């Protein structure tokens, strides 16, 4: 690799073995992230976004979850091959995660400050007092007065809790940050505050970021590259400009068309007919084929490999239009 990739995911497959059958959550995902870059992972519920992030950190519940194939390399190191002890040194230190729900991501019986200090003390091998001092600085960095250090999570509002979770994630200055729908539980004015904060901190600390979201507005604002995920597969992958100005996959176009636009007056939204396929019984070929207007029998035959339509812009479709759609 000529490029300085901090993370490389190759052909990742993850399954959940449940009583009802095998759920195929991630099916052959390959992604890479350049140092300092922000990658948006977009898709609907059940697309496998969170499973991808959790398999990077190796925090999937095993069993039922199982990585059946594929490698994840972080700074050249195969995360599948290192020991749990080594993984623990990376977790929260080099790779950190912001969880979706700030209400349940914090421990209610410890003070917010001590939860930030915990990681600092563990990973940076400093004294308790020093860790507490740095945790206080982190609180201030995310815009919470240091006096709130000894408060418990229930004394914080939703926006403040999410800021505290961000402070925990950034406390050890990670190289890679995984943000799983960090603003979904928040109101829009608070979301704007949190996004602004994440942008500032990312630029200041040079953190590489994977932003998991279902909101294309957030992608437009914060990401450099975008992967559109459907039923555990990457449908389209490219720069933000590729996706917003030249999108070629029928699913990506369908998603954009489903969104009510603020700058247009539409009488009816163009919808994608049908539902997501059952992950226990995925179609053999393209997972989107049953809902796709252009689908033919050819689409059902087997896995469709991504094609590079323009440099860096990959589309997994047999019938890629000559010209893309612009939002």
């Amino acid at each position, binding site marked *: 690799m000529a490029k300085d990739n901090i993370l490389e995911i190759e052909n990742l497959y993850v399954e959940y073995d449940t009583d009802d059958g095998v759920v195929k959550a991630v099916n052959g995902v390959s992604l890479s992230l350049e140092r300092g870059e922000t990658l948006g992972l977009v898709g*609907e*519920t059940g697309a496998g976004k969170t499973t991808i992030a959790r398999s990077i950190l190796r925090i999937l519940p095993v069993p039922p979850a199982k990585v059946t194939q594929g490698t994840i390399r972080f700074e050249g190191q195969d995360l599948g091959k290192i020991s749990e002890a080594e993984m623990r040194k990376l977790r929260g230190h080099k790779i950190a995660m912001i969880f979706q729900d700030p209400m349940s991501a914090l421990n209610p019986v410890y003070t917010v400050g001590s939860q930030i200090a915990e990681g600092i003390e563990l990973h940076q091998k400093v004294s308790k007092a020093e860790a507490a001092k740095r945790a206080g600085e982190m609180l201030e960095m995310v815009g919470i007065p240091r006096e709130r250090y000894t408060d418990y999570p229930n004394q914080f*509002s*939703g*926006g*403040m809790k999410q800021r505290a979770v961000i402070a925990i994630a950034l406390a050890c200055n990670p190289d890679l940050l995984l943000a799983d729908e960090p603003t979904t539980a928040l*109101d*829009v*004015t*608070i*979301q*704007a*505050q949190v*996004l*602004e904060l994440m942008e500032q901190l990312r630029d200041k600390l040079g953190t590489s970021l994977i932003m998991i979201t*279902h*909101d*294309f*507005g*957030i992608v*437009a*604002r914060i990401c450099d590259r975008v992967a559109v995920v459907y039923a555990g597969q990457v449908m389209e992958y490219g720069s*933000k*400009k590729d996706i*917003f*100005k030249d999108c070629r996959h029928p699913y990506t176009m*369908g*998603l*954009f*068309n*489903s*969104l*009510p*636009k*603020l700058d247009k*007056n*539409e009488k*009816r*939204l*163009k*919808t*994608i*007919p049908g*539902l*997501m396929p059952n992950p226990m019984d995925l179609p053999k070929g393209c997972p989107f084929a049953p809902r796709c207007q252009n689908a033919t029998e050819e689409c059902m035959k087997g896995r469709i490999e991504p094609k590079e339509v323009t440099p860096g812009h990959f589309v997994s479709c047999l019938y890629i239009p000559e010209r893309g759609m612009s*939002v």
Partner: protein
Amino acid sequence: MSQTNQNETPILEVQNLKKYFNVSAGTLHAVDDVSFKIYKGKTLGVVGESGCGKSTLGRTVLHLLESTSGKIFFEGKDITKVNRHELTQVRRDMQFIFQDPFSSLNPRKTVGEAIADPLMLLKGEKGSQLFEDVIRMMDTVGLARRLYNTYPHELDGGRRQRIGIARAISVNPKFIVCDEPVSALDVSIQAQVLNLMLDLQEANDLTYIFITHDMSVVKYISDDICVMYLGQVVEKCPSDELFANPLHPYTQALLSAIPLLDIDQEVKHEILQGELTSPINPKPGCRFASRCKYATAKCKEPQEFREVSDGHFVACCGVTGQ
């Protein structure tokens, strides 16, 4: 609302509606002096952030919650004063679609049974008539007939929300309060459900109050929009006007906080500082003043909700009339 409707009687008129809750810390002003009119076949969007009283407003309007004071006229009759018998009729005419299709359905009832309930209770239907009507409702909302005997947990969110819609429209209501009906759904399913709601509105001349926190959804579906902040309506005007010419500083901040799909435009985000203050024992002045960059001493006085241009109402002393 356009002028053509000015002579009509509104289907619903709410006057100075208040709903207070007594909590240990004092009196929580969930809905505080809200007035509006809705005309038949129209949609009033109610937007605001969590805790602003949108859902309480919806529930109080339907008399699911007893109001503290104020009047609610439905087709000219004050429904806060009806007796039990009349309330059954009101329930038939005014229905509710709940936010969460996961917890608003009885897990022990099949799709067929869930849709049959309101038909039995409010219209007294039974036997083959009931069965036919349930099937007809399932067809109307796009639920396959084979799902008749399935349970809610077997279905996805979009289908569950369709059950909620079928239940609401089964008794031929004239008016429906929709409380965040699509916020639990994915975008591709959300678009299907929004289109269905518009189709039903056109076919049956339904009137909606549509409660949501999503500004692009509210613009798509509403004729008029009320913006709420801590229990009060701070701005009300036709949908297009609100997006073209927002006057209240809170509305402006709310609109600028939406992440847009446009990747070229360097949007200057107006980041609102601070967070919602408490609606418990609020002070008499403007409740947004503590976060407002234009706030002056005059904002400590009660704000008048006044019409500054045709059909455009705003509660802010800083806004000058045109």
